[in-house]
C-alpha cells in the first residue's frame, strides 16, 4: 500500500473537470485507489464520490493506492494535483 499526502493547488478546487481527470487516470490502473480528506475516504474511480469530498483550495488530500501497480498509480494521481489539473 502506498500513501501520498498532497495539497490542492488550483484555486477552484476539485470540481467536475478535475474529478473526471482523476477518475480517468485512476481507471488506467488495476490497484484500488482512494482519496482521503479529513476522515472521509472515497473511491478515486468514482466521479460522484470525488465531487462529494467537496475538496477546495489548499485542502489536504491523502492518496492511497493498493494493488500490483500501486506505486505508479499513486504517483500518476499525485501528478495531477501537482500540475493543478492543467488549470490556473
Amino acid at each position, binding site marked *: 500500500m502506498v500513501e501520498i499526502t498532497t495539497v490542492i493547488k488550483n484555486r477552484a478546487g476539485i470540481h467536475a473537470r478535475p474529478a473526471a481527470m482523476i477518475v480517468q487516470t485512476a481507471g488506467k490502473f488495476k490497484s484500488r485507489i482512494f482519496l482521503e480528506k*479529513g476522515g*472521509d475516504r472515497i*473511491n478515486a474511480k*468514482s466521479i*460522484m464520490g470525488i*465531487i*462529494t469530498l467537496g475538496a477546495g483550495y489548499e485542502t489536504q488530500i491523502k492518496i492511497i493506492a493498493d494493488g500490483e501497480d500501486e506505486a505508479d498509480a499513486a504517483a500518476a494521481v499525485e501528478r495531477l494535483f501537482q500540475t493543478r489539473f492543467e488549470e490556473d
Partner: protein
Amino acid sequence: MDDKRFTVLDLLDLDLKEHDALDLRCIGGRKGLGREINGPDINRPGLALSGFFESFAFQRIQLIGRGEAAYLRLRASEGKSAEVDKIFSYPVPCFIFANSEAPEPAFAAAAEAADCPLLLSDLSSTEMASRLMRVLATIFAPKTSAHGVLVEVYGIGILLTGDSGVGKSETALELIERGHRLVADDVVEIRCVSGNILMGSGANKVIGHHMEIRGLGIINVTHLFGVGAIRDKKQVQLICKLEEWDATKVYDRIGTEENTDDILGVKVPRLDIPVKPGRNIPIIVETAAMNERLKKMGYYSAREFNQNILRWLESESARAVYFGRNESI
C-alpha cells in the same frame, strides 16, 4: 461531518422540516456560536440556577422552560445574580429558551460578556426537549459511508454494491425508470439510529440525486424523472452485491442460505448477484425486494418450497406402502 466539531452554529444551520423543526434563533452571545456541542444530551439547569452546582452537566445544551424562566425573573427582581454569574463561569455550549420567553436583560448581558450563545424558540420546553433529543441522536449516531447506490424498490431499501464498472448506476437507472426511487448514488452515508436501524442518505445535499452514467456523464435524476423518483433517506434493509460472473464460484441456487454483511454492528441480509451480458439485473433486484417483503411477512419462498417437497415425498412413500400391499395381494 466526520472528525468535525458540531457547533452551535451547525445546530442553527440544520435544515429540519415539519416535526423536526427546532425554530431556533440566536438572540445573544453570537461570538460564542463556534462553541462545540459534544454530546446528544440536554440539561435542565434548575438545580444550578438555585445554587447547587455539584455534578452540574455544563457540557450539555441547557434548556430553560417556564419554571426556570420564572425563577430567573424572580431572582432578577430581587437583584440577586450570584448563580447566573457562576453558571457563566462554566463553558456551557448554549442556552435555549423555550416558549419564546426571552431572558432578563441582566442574564442576556452576562451571556454576552461570557460569549455564551442564547437561543430562543417558540416551542414548549417538553416539545423542544424531545425534538432536540431526536435531532442530536441522529447527528451523534455512529456513521459510515458505503460505496454503492441506495434505491428504494417496492418499499425496501436496497444498497447495490460492487466494483466500479460492474453496472450499479445502470441498474439503478433502470429501476428508476420502472418507477422505483433513488436515495443516493455512489457515496451513501449510513447512520445507525436507535441501535439497530441503518438509515442511508446522500452524503451531500448539493450533489444529491445526481448520477454518473458512463457515456452520458452526470445526470440530474430529479429533473429527468421527477420528484417521485427520489427520496432523501431510507433504511438499508438489503444489500445486493453485483459481481462479474465467476465460473468457479458457487452461487446460491435455492435461496435457503442467508448471507449477511455487518454495517456498524447491524447485520444486513446480502445477496450476491452475478452479472453477465443478457442477464436482466433490475428485474432480479425487483424480485429480491418482493421476496424480502414476503420474508418480513414470515413467508420464506425457498424454505416453504422445500417443506412442500418434503411433505410430498413423505406422502409418496406412504402411498408406496399401500401400492406395495396391493401388488402383493
